[in-house]
């Protein structure tokens, strides 16, 4: 192959500039601007006045020019406004962190034990971890709605023992549970793929040199599995902190997350893409910061284990 074949990447580069780079720039632009509406003589309009003018124009059979002009003005207002929602932002980060930590503690021993099995057995175990992952995300979350309801299966089961009923759905706990359930495989798989590469002899050598089980874990297994931990944390935390479905289905209307805020600005009644872009920008910057921090865990910079 030769240098000339590098031009075959050109259509892709064009595609990515239009559909990835430009949209991100648009987010940046929208986050730092606000739309002001004018009529054709240059008078400033409120939203209601503009809507009225457009309605009149349509009623008149669309005679003449479109009556409303829009201009973008630079402003920091949107970014400042994001501060009003800081409690929601902090809440999302806390819930996603709890879910990530529980996934790590739940998944780590499993990934380790599976990586020490016979290869044919490993394949089967991993298949059964991947299976729920391949089910649609919404159906998985919907399954928990059935279980957690007030007269759902868990409460009825507890009733047999004379306990409950508990208020489980529409709580923060339900949201965390939904995150753990949906994203646990994303923790196990990168952990497992790193741990299969740990040679049994390395661990045996640690024992031979006098390490007890705790020492072998902290001095050998843990450091060697760091890249898996790093990518597992990212792969659970990023979707968990930005979700809006889990909080919608399991959290009721009351437990809003960052994702819900963004969705509300773009598809809700309070259509405000400028504020929505500002929140998205904050989320994006935060996520990128988190990823660069977790990448520090993987100090050796072994090859990326993004599945």
């Amino acid at each position: 192959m030769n240098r000339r074949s590098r031009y075959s990447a050109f259509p892709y580069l064009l595609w990515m500039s239009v559909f990835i780079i430009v949209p991100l720039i648009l987010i940046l632009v929208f986050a730092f601007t606000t739309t002001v509406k004018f009529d054709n003589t240059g008078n400033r309009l409120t939203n209601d006045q503009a809507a009225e003018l457009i309605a009149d124009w349509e009623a008149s059979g669309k005679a003449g020019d479109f009556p409303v002009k829009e201009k973008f003005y630079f402003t920091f207002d949107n970014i400042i406004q994001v501060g009003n929602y800081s409690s929601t932002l902090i809440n999302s980060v806390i819930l996603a962190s709890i879910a990530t930590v529980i996934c790590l503690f739940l998944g780590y021993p499993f990934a380790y034990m599976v990586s020490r099995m016979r290869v044919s057995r490993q394949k089967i175990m991993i298949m059964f971890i991947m299976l729920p992952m391949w089910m649609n995300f919404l159906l998985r979350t919907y399954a928990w709605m059935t279980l957690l309801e007030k007269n759902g299966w868990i409460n009825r089961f507890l009733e047999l023992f004379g306990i409950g009923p508990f208020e489980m759905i529409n709580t923060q706990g339900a949201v965390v549970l939904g995150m753990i359930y949906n994203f646990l495989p994303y923790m196990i798989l990168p952990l497992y793929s790193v741990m299969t590469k740990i040679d049994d002899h390395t661990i045996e050598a640690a024992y031979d040199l006098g390490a007890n089980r705790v020492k072998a874990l902290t001095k050998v297994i843990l450091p060697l599995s760091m890249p898996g931990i790093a990518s597992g944390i990212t792969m659970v935390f990023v979707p968990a902190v930005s979700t809006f479905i889990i909080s919608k289905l399991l959290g009721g209307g009351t437990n809003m997350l960052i994702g819900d805020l963004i969705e509300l600005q773009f598809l809700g009644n309070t259509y405000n893409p400028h504020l929505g872009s500002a929140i998205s920008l904050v989320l994006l910057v935060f996520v990128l910061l988190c990823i660069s921090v977790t990448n520090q865990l993987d100090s050796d910079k072994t090859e990326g284990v993004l599945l």
Partner: protein
Amino acid sequence: MKKLPSRVYYIFLFGFLYIPIFVLIANSFNASKSRNVWTGFTFDWYVKLFNDADIMSALANTIIIALIASTVATVLGTAAAIGIFNMKNTARTVIMNATYLPIINPEIVTGVSLMLLFVFLKINLGFLTLILSHITFCLPYVILCVLPKLRQMDIHLYEAAMDLGCNRRQAFRKVVIPEITTGIITGFLMSLTYSIDDFVISYFTSGPTSQTLPITIFSMTRRKVSPKLNALSAIIFVIVLAVLLVMNVREIKASKKNKNRR
């Protein structure tokens, strides 16, 4: 002594993963509309599911969009991987970092940014915008599947083919393409699954007219009672299980063959 705790742990973990799904499947045969009372066995919900025009048209949309998007993404992505492979180091690093961007980007940000783009360009949200956005989020996965195959390939094979009288096009078709075919197929299948499964990005880029299956599922979960959803879950579960089983059996057979050869 060591066996019991680990067994309890496995049962707990798999129980946690599978009990919700099995409850859904059990409910799909429940004659009662309520999710919580068992009144008898029925196949009604399956019949109603297949007679639901909304769900069936959403299913058709999903499949058409997935096929178009993954085909385009596979062609563009394979060409891109070949191009990137032949680039100088700095250009390659920059482009690969940009390729990772949509993967690490939270899905909601990708969805919202694409929506902004389409609104800005005054393209009506609908079938076209869905295809465009699906191609966009599938492309990186194709590249990440094909590029490693190119790296594993022995470049001398290509040169040998040229020495033996192939022209560039022939050498490419007869040597390079067969070497990277598995990568291309994996890329295509990954695109297909991501496209069929995607909710978040489709949610922001689909108009009111053309819906995909996940979006229809979402609107069904918003209703109080929707037993058809249970039937749908059961069907999807069985399909996924079958696909995974076939894949695993083939893999095990292939590895056995390799062993025999050695």
